[in-house]
C-alpha cells in the first residue's frame, strides 16, 4: 500500500495517522481536515476552554514538531466533498482530488440545531471561544439540552457568575443514558448550584435573543446554547456506495468496504463484545478506533475485531462522572458501592443477563478498574453482584 488517505483531522484521524507510522508504514499519508487548526482536543472545550482556565493553545493534541515528524500530507481547512470508490479518490472542497489505496473515514459529527439564527453550538474551538467571551457575571444564558455537554456548559457558566436556565425535554435529564435514579442525582447538582433547571420542556426555536417553547412561552436571554445532540458527517459519502445509517456502517473490524475503514464519532460498527451495532461519540473511542482501523487496514490478513469497552467521563461542579461499558438500553441499575445521596457511588447496569456497564462518581480508581474489568470479561449479573459483597467487605 503506497497511499493512505485519512479524512477527518481530529482525535480519531490523528490516532489513525500516528498508528500507521508507529506500525512502520512508510508510504504517503494524507490527512484531510475541514477546520483550519492543527488537530485539537474537544473535551476541554466545554470545560477548561469555556471557563477560560486554559489558553486555547493548550488544546492542541500534539506539539507542532511531533506532528511534523509524522511526515503527513496535511490538508487542513479543506473539507472532503465526495468519494469515488471505483477510482479510489476523495473529492475535496478546493476542487482537487486525492487518490488512495487505503481510506479511513473519521469525519465526526456536527451539532444538531434548532430553527432560528444566532444561538451558539459547542463543537469547535471557535464555538467555545465565542461562547466563553460572552459568559460574564449576570449575563443570562439559556442552555437547551441537559445532556453531558449542556450540563458541563451550564456548570461552567454558573462558576463564571452567569444566570443559567437549563431546559430539557425529558422528565429526568440523562435518564435514557444513565437511568432515572442516577440522572436525578446529577440534575440535583444543577439546582444546588443555582441553575434554573426545567424539565419536560420542548424548545421550538432558539436565536440570539432567547428561546420559544412549544407552549408559546418565550424565555429571553443574552445568549442561547443549543446542545441537543449531533448528526454524523456523512453527507460527503452520499451516492458513494458506502452504507450510511446514522453513521457510516462498518463491520466488526471497523471496515466499511474493502480497504475502507471508519473510526470515531462517525462510525457505526458491530461491537462483538456486546454483540450489537453501536456508534460512540466519546473521546476514548475516537483514539481506540482510529488505532484499530489503521492496524486492520495495514494488516488485512491479521485483522482483529474492534471490541472495546466504551468509556466516557464528564466534569460537573467538581463531580467527576466516569462510565465504562454500554449503559444505553439497560434493563436494570443497582448502586453497588457508596450511596447516591452522598454523590459518591458506583452504579452497575444490567442488560439481559450481563453486567453491561458501570457509572462511578468519586470512587477510588482501583474499584472502578475492577468493575470495568468485570464488564470487559462479560460477567453475568448474578456473578457481578455476588462479587460486590466481597468488594464491600474488603
Amino acid at each position, binding site marked *: 500500500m503506497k497511499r493512505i488517505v485519512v479524512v477527518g483531522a481530529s482525535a480519531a484521524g490523528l490516532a489513525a495517522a500516528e498508528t500507521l507510522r508507529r506500525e512502520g508504514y512508510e508510504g504517503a499519508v494524507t490527512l484531510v481536515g475541514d477546520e483550519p487548526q492543527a488537530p485539537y482536543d474537544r473535551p476541554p472545550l466545554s470545560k477548561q476552554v469555556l471557563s477560560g482556565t486554559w489558553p486555547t493553545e493548550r488544546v492542541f493534541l500534539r506539539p507542532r514538531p511531533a506532528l511534523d515528524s509524522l511526515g503527513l500530507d496535511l490538508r487542513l481547512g479543506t473539507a472532503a466533498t465526495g468519494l469515488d470508490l471505483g477510482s479510489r479518490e476523495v473529492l475535496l472542497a478546493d476542487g482537487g482530488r486525492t487518490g488512495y489505496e487505503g481510506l479511513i473515514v473519521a469525519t465526526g459529527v456536527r451539532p444538531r440545531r434548532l430553527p432560528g439564527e444566532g444561538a451558539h453550538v459547542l463543537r469547535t474551538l471557535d464555538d467555545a471561544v465565542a461562547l466563553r467571551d460572552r459568559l460574564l457575571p449576570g449575563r443570562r444564558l439559556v442552555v437547551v439540552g441537559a445532556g453531558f455537554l449542556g450540563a458541563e456548559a451550564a456548570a461552567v457558566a454558573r462558576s463564571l457568575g452567569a444566570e443559567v436556565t437549563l431546559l430539557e425535554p425529558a422528565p429526568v435529564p440523562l435518564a435514557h443514558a444513565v437511568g432515572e435514579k442516577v440522572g436525578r442525582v446529577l440534575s440535583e447538582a444543577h439546582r444546588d448550584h443555582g441553575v434554573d433547571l426545567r424539565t419536560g420542556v420542548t424548545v421550538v426555536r432558539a436565536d440570539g435573543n432567547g428561546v420559544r417553547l412549544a407552549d408559546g412561552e418565550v424565555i429571553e436571554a443574552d445568549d442561547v446554547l443549543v446542545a441537543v445532540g449531533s448528526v454524523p458527517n456523512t453527507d460527503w459519502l452520499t451516492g458513494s456506495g458506502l452504507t450510511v445509517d446514522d453513521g457510516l456502517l462498518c463491520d466488526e473490524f471497523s471496515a466499511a468496504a474493502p480497504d475502507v475503514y471508519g473510526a470515531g464519532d462517525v462510525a457505526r460498527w458491530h461491537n462483538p463484545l456486546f454483540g450489537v451495532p453501536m456508534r460512540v461519540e466519546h473521546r476514548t473511542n475516537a483514539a481506540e478506533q482510529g488505532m484499530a482501523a489503521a492496524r486492520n487496514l495495514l494488516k488485512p490478513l491479521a485483522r482483529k475485531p474492534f471490541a472495546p469497552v466504551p468509556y466516557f467521563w464528564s466534569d460537573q461542579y467538581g463531580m467527576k462522572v466516569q462510565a465504562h461499558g454500554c449503559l444505553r438500553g439497560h434493563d436494570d441499575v443497582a448502586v453497588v458501592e457508596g450511596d447516591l445521596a452522598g454523590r459518591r457511588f458506583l452504579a452497575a447496569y444490567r442488560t439481559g443477563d450481563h453486567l453491561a456497564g458501570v457509572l462511578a462518581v468519586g470512587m477510588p*480508581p482501583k474499584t472502578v478498574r475492577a468493575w470495568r474489568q468485570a464488564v470487559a470479561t462479560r460477567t453475568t449479573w448474578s456473578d457481578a453482584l455476588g462479587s460486590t459483597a466481597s468488594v464491600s467487605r474488603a
Partner: protein
Amino acid sequence: MSMRVELDEPKCVASGQCVMAAPEVFDQREEDGVAIVLDDGPAPELHDGVREAAAICPAAAIHLVER
C-alpha cells in the same frame, strides 16, 4: 533506544487508560485517580505498552521522548 515518560499532570482526566495499557509504568492516585508515573525510564520490553498508553490517553497528557 531509550525512552523518557513525561506526564502533563494538570491535563490528566483520571481515565486510567494508561494503567490498563502499561500497568508497570503507570498507576493512579487513590484520592482523585490522576495518573502517576512509576517508572519514567522504562525498560525496552515495556516500550510498546507505554506507546499504546500515550496514544490512547484521552487527554493527550503523556509525552514520550525517545532517542
